[in-house]
């Protein structure tokens, strides 16, 4: 094999290995770390649920897939299905904001009490009976009301 061919082969091999590395890094990248992405929209749990109840299609176009910061009052903290979930009061008795917390939030969540005003950040996925946020983390935690 000539020197030129050897160099070409080496470059192709390096490119292939580089491509594979990037592919597998991306492929195996688990989930979004909410701490490392910036907030796109700030709102309150009441406004968020009211928007979805009034016009779900319109609210989806504003919030769905966005990183949002939500201020609200704790209705319930749930550990069902081995998940850490914080439910915030919404605009009415039957709807709220369901926040599935990141696993690194467990210690902070255990300290929360019903009626406490908090702010959290997460990815809005849409609305069923409640607005649903995944990958949530607490921010600027305030004292009990």
């Amino acid at each position, binding site marked *: 094999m000539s020197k030129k061919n050897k160099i070409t082969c080496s470059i192709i091999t390096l490119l292939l290995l580089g491509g594979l590395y990037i592919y597998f890094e991306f492929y*195996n*990248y688990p989930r979004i770390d909410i701490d490392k992405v910036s907030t796109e929209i700030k709102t309150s749990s009441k406004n968020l649920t009211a928007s979805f109840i009034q016009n779900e299609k319109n609210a989806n176009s504003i919030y769905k897939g966005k990183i949002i910061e939500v201020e609200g009052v704790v209705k319930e903290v749930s550990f069902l*299905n081995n998940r850490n*979930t914080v439910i915030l009061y919404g605009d009415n008795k039957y709807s709220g904001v*369901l926040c599935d917390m990141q696993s690194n939030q467990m210690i902070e969540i255990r300290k929360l009490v019903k009626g406490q005003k908090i702010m959290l950040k997460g990815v809005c996925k*849409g609305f*069923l009976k409640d607005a649903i946020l995944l990958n949530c983390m607490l921010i600027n935690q305030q004292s009990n009301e």
Partner: protein
Amino acid sequence: MNRIIILLSLLINFTDSDNRSDQVITRQGQVSFFSYTSVENIEAKNNQVLSIIDFSRSEIAISMLMNAFVFKKSLMHEHFNESYIESDLYPKATFQGSIIDFDPLAEGIQTKMVKGTLTIRDIAKEVEIKTSIENIDGTYLITGDFEVVVKDFEIKIPPILAPNIAKNISIKFRFEYQPYEK
């Protein structure tokens, strides 16, 4: 689309009904799916599934956001939502059906058939699912599993990825209901 309207009206009727004692709800039902092939195994979970049972009519309604399924790998999540389920066009999957011969007052575990319509990507299929229903002091735990055929819901898988995705997908569910009004 009509079925979604019917399901929504059913959920709204439940909400507006004065008699809530006949109804139980979960906002955090769990639905998992599994695709097993020799190339790779794919698994995803949705922990925010909404379901309401109306005992007076033995009816059950379920609704879930397809983009709330969590995968181990981000690219799987992207393929699922953008290429297969097209969750921007079809954001929700729903089920509406009846629990056959169900006695809500019986304590302990009952095995019952649930018959109804499963709608994914706006395509409705009649299904019959064997479920275990456990009544513990008025809270109900419903679990079960069944299979869906990928082809039934017109999910297009590119030939190059066909070996990676099973033709039949296993679905597992676990719903822990509470009385409707807390």
